[in-house]
């Protein structure tokens, strides 16, 4: 369970202050699939970064399973992200010198898994997204859709509590986007908590709940 309390984020550029999030409150229960939508510049990605501990809010708090994250050190945040979160980025964010298998196995190794076990779990995760035959390929040898599926495999291989996805279909064609969204749907049906930022309404409809952001505030929060 993630609880967002009066979240504020302000960016400073010299004397100019820009308030991107203006006090956001909501709660995401375990097993929910939440889509955060809004026009460009509304603050949806900024909200995702604060929730997923990639960035620190100016004010307010993010509570995970009832525990405040404001007092966490950077090392604790990294450890927390490793153990509890999975990330799918808009531009896939794969390491170019690692094969698909190695990209997925890396967080498992960091968790202390034996290499054989890590690679077995990575293989399983890649097979789950239909890439069992591309284990040894470098990201440069994969299409955009395939890279995003590797990214999803990396995010779910260690069975995180929450899967964060930032515009996962933005760089993909319709067909690949549909494949990715169906994977999310399957994961959700399996009980995975997913928080996804998107600006495409048709993909937001895969979620069970849609939160609309505008000008740094929640303007609607509806269950589908």
């Amino acid at each position, binding site marked *: 369970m993630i609880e967002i309390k009066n979240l504020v984020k302000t960016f400073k550029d010299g004397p100019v202050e820009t308030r991107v999030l203006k006090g956001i409150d909501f709660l995401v229960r375990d097993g929910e699939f939440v889509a955060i939508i809004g026009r460009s510049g509304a603050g949806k990605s900024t909200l995702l970064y604060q929730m997923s501990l*990639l960035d620190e809010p100016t004010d307010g708090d993010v509570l995970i399973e009832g525990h405040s994250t404001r007092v966490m050190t950077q090392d604790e945040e990294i450890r927390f992200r490793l153990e509890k979160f999975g*990330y799918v980025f808009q531009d896939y964010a794969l390491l170019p*010198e690692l094969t698909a298998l190695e990209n997925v196995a890396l*967080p498992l190794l*960091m968790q202390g898994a034996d290499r054989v076990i890590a690679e077995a779990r990575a293989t399983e995760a890649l097979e789950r997204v239909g890439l069992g035959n591309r284990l040894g390929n470098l990201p440069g040898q994969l299409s955009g859709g395939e890279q995003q599926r590797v990214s999803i495999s990396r995010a779910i291989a260690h069975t995180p509590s929450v899967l964060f996805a930032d515009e996962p279909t933005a760089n993909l064609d319709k067909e690949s986007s549909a494949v990715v969204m169906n994977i999310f749907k399957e994961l959700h049906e399996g009980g995975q908590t997913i928080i996804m930022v998107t600006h495409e309404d048709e993909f937001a409809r895969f979620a069970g709940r849609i939160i609309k952001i505008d000008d740094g505030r929640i303007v609607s929060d509806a269950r589908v």
Partner: protein
Amino acid sequence: MFSFTTIRVGFYLAVRQVRRANLWATGLIVFVMLLTFLNLVVVTGLLVGIVAGISNQFRTQETGDVIISTLDTKEYIENSPDILSFLYTLHEPQVISARYRAAGTIEANYLARTDPNEKPNKTGTTVVGIDPIVENRFSHLASYVHEGQYLSPSDYDTVLLGPQLVDRYSFGEQPGLTPLKNVYPGSKIRLTVNGHVREVVVKGILDVSANSPLAARVFMPAPEVRQLMGRTDYAVSEVAILLPPGADAPAFRDFLKRSGLAAGAKIRTFQDAIPNGVAEVQNTFAMIGNAIGSIGLVVAAITIFIVIFINAITRRKFIGILKGIGISGEAIEISYIFQSLFYAAIGSVIGLVVLYGFLVPYISAHPIVLPISDAIIVAPVGGTMLRIGLLVLTTVVAGYLPSRMIVRKNTLDSILGRD
């Protein structure tokens, strides 16, 4: 902190980054490390080797491994025949060269001098009486004859001259040394020893470096020098002993002392007999070499720093992603340390192969001929290992610092490429 897991993940990342890096870039970095290694070891080794060349000349051309010489209060070694007889019974010596040594003068162009007020072309020298065959086995003296011929035991009234005594070969006038002009093989010169004057023929002229002990000497067969010195008791001035390679010279010296030979002579190893100044010059050259090597080390550190910094800064986004997915900063830093270690290790290993597989044996067999000496490369394994350690340590620090700088940056800023 650096746990087993962070080291393992760091190594995992480093291996893949190196393996899939641009081959030319990797080759260039390794080449820089190789040059740095050679700069560290070879420059110092060569500078020390120049002096070692001088020392080596003393050993191979004069003292051998152990030298028996006159006491400071004597002009000859007492009981020389007994000492030599004893030495000839021993199995350790490879060659034993007994020599007579006397101060003398040589004069050239005396027949052409018409004006009695004209300064004679004359110089002081050391005249060495040798057994030409034994001496050639000892110091390969015949191989240094540049003009004319080597001595034979039956020669009479013939001499070999060191190059410093001959005007066209000398390295300029030195105090007490006036090189002879117009002297060639076949020229007659006037030799004076112990008040005895003899006209002799120059049979050969040597070609050795300025610091060679042979450079300013006159050689002639021993019986003639003995005659000139007026000696009738066969007491020689010095006995140089060459031992087999690897023999323990100090142990042999001590054995001779215990055998009672020290009562009438000085018994010293080559190291004992080497002039003090040479050791000081050797230390000075080693210090200069270390100073030059240190500059090389700094250059290597800067090179690695720049390489790793550029690598880290261009990969800042990926470093951010690694942190974003939960890879610790330490693991990322360790991956760069491993990369630096790889470059240093490969450069050093290739350097070791080049050094000990080629440079040292080749230069030992074909010394670099310099005016001061025939230089070799002195690269003791211990010193080389110390320098490799320094290089690796410097490289690790130079690799760690830039990676630390980039890893410490805000994770999200790194991912999004924000400053």
